[in-house]
């Protein structure tokens, strides 16, 4: 699924059978090349973060969770990923050699595993496994 398609997807709590929020952003760990959490558009009981491991499914039409209690404040382990540096899209893509490949327009991930499968730069795609860093200036991929 594309990052652009994931944004806005409803989050449904199965115990209440109701929509409790919608996806605002995907939090990527560049060292593991996978999505580790979702940020919600609005806070639910003062919290807005869902860990990938707490999802029941990232489905074609909705994200399902066991209950709204899974929504929590971001843990300290996500601090470095949720600041200004944590977003992949609209950043310059640099190789580890220091060459720019363009701007990251979109990215794709596996809805079963959360693995980042590709980064899209113009008409080209870069294998998600090459991701090495995502900072406030650039996204860095292996040369």
């Amino acid at each position, binding site marked *: 699924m594309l990052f652009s398609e994931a944004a806005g997807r409803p989050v449904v709590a199965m115990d209440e059978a109701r929509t409790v929020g919608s996806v605002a952003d995907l939090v990527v760990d*560049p060292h593991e090349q996978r999505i580790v959490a979702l940020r919600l558009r609005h806070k639910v009981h003062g919290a807005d973060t869902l860990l990938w491991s707490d999802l029941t499914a990232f489905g074609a039409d909705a994200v399902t969770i066991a209950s709204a209690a899974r929504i929590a404040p971001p843990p300290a382990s996500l601090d470095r990923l949720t600041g200004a540096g944590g977003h992949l899209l609209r950043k310059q893509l*640099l190789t580890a*050699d220091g060459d720019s490949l363009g701007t990251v327009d979109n990215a794709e991930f596996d809805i079963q595993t959360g693995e980042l499968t590709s980064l899209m730069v113009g008409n080209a795609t870069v294998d998600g496994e090459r991701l*090495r*860093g995502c*900072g*406030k*200036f650039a996204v860095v991929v292996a040369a």
Partner: protein
Amino acid sequence: MTRLVRATDVIGMPVVTLDGDDIADIKDVVFDGDTGRVRGFTLNGRGLLAGPLDQGLPAGAVSSVGRDAVMTAGPTTTVSLRDMAARAGNGDVLGNHVLTEGGTDLGAVADVILQVAPGGVVDVVGYDIVAGPALYGDGRRVLLPLPHTIAASGEVVIVPTESVELVRPNLAEFGDAVATLRHETGDGTDAVQ
């Protein structure tokens, strides 16, 4: 992949960590006054209002010099400028005249050609010179390969006489000239690929 770049092209490039954060801009190249090698880079802060930093980036901390950025492992790779520049001395060769061992003035240094090897090892491999009358009468710019170590005084730079035969007009043909010179002078330990 080994890459050749002009020192002036590196100036102004952002210094970016492999985590994707920009930590500085390259302000200038610091050469070793004794050997002519690159000791590192002085830095400017990022942004319109930022000035020079009191930290420098040692050559050994550079993981790569690309077309768009100088890459380094992390934000802690910079060192005090005082430590890095301690022996820089007469390191600025721009404007110096290049003299062969045979005593011919080949022209004045306008730029320095750096070779960046895999792993970021930065070496000076040549000069971009404004050719003197001994080479060409029209003052054109040419590239002159250098052996691994040279003698430089802050006034003139001494090069082997053989390097005159290996002057090249552009970077595309220059790598072979460096390799040939370093082979001929028995100094081919880091020949350009």
